[in-house]
């Protein structure tokens, strides 16, 4: 429930009505690009139809939060995720397809945890990873 509180608070922060919790298609993400963020997990939920995650990043802009969404729980399990892999406070590196409008965050392509955990697309070709992620995200 704590994660729910965090999400509700975050939604309230962005002026989103409570029932606008539904997740959207992947139309707002640019799957021709990949951006990596490293930070500590503030919130993580393996839910359907799309996972959500917020990490705290420290960079030239200072300390700030970056939000992501990604695949369904089912597809996360098929790509290596297991319960307990993601914990609040842990350091992770997130590869994502960035938002088209230039805002931070994006659609998760893969996540690597500091203790060696990994889930998502992982090949020698980042473009292939992004294309595979896009195909799944769009339900094709």
């Amino acid at each position: 429930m704590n994660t729910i509180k965090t999400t509700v608070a975050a939604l309230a922060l962005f002026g989103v009505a409570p029932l606008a919790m539904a997740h959207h298609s992947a139309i707002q993400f640019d799957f021709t690009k990949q951006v990596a963020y490293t930070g500590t997990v503030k919130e993580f939920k393996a839910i359907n139809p799309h996972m959500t995650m917020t990490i705290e990043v420290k960079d030239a802009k200072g300390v700030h939060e970056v939000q992501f969404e990604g695949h369904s729980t089912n597809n996360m399990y098929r790509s290596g995720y297991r319960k307990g892999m993601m914990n609040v406070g842990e350091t992770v590196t997130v590869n994502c397809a960035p938002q088209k409008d230039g805002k931070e965050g994006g659609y998760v392509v893969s996540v690597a945890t500091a203790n060696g955990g990994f889930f998502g697309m992982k090949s020698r070709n980042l473009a292939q990873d992004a294309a595979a992620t896009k195909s799944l995200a769009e339900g094709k």
Partner: protein
Amino acid sequence: MNDMKRTSALVAAAMATVLAGVALAAAPARPDFTGVWTNAGAPGIGGATRGGGPAPLPLRPEAKARVDAYQKLVGPVGDSPGGWCLGYGMPSSMLSSGGYPMEIVQRPEQFTITYEAHTEMRRFYLGARNAPQADRIPGRNGYSSAHWEGNTLVVETDNLVDQVDQRWAHSDEAKIVERYHLEDKPDAQGRRVLVADMVMTDPKFYTAPVTEQKRWAEVPNGRLLPYECPEEFWNHRLEELAKKAGVPLP
């Protein structure tokens, strides 16, 4: 006399057994579609055989206006039925279903199909198992009756509701015929391949039948994963109730 009665009873029982055996032997063996199937385009997840296809659907002008209006409404925000935990509906549940696998459980009188995405379900009824027409409740996946034509399972679906919100939009007058068969040879990975040829007719929406083909490959010893989706909405409702009541979450 008692001996004669016993003998007659034994003969009758033996004849019944023989006739039952003959009847069983006469029943044609049907292909068994039972199993978990994934898109044949790629192993595991993803890889639909044919998306909506490059060719535009033969929409009537008034139907196209509705589809365009829908796209204009949801396009900018990327909303979709699935985003709100609503199933795809036919024919998208069969042709797409987000690239997730499906499971078929086959009995002589009924097929039960579970599409993993949104745990969407269809049932194909055969023969006397069918419900009377008046008892068939309209829905996004309609009502499906089926029969065999040789080794091909023919599934006829009607009682669909109007769905402008899917890739193969249609009205409540749409009728869909699917013809399922197993390919003679396994694919390159040795998997059985199931094929469905679909024809959708809808005089309200289309000027010509819409045809598509979908191919699946069997997942040996495969299992569908659970797909709970509305739970987040329920959790949020509990949060809301607790907040209004001024009490902590139970």
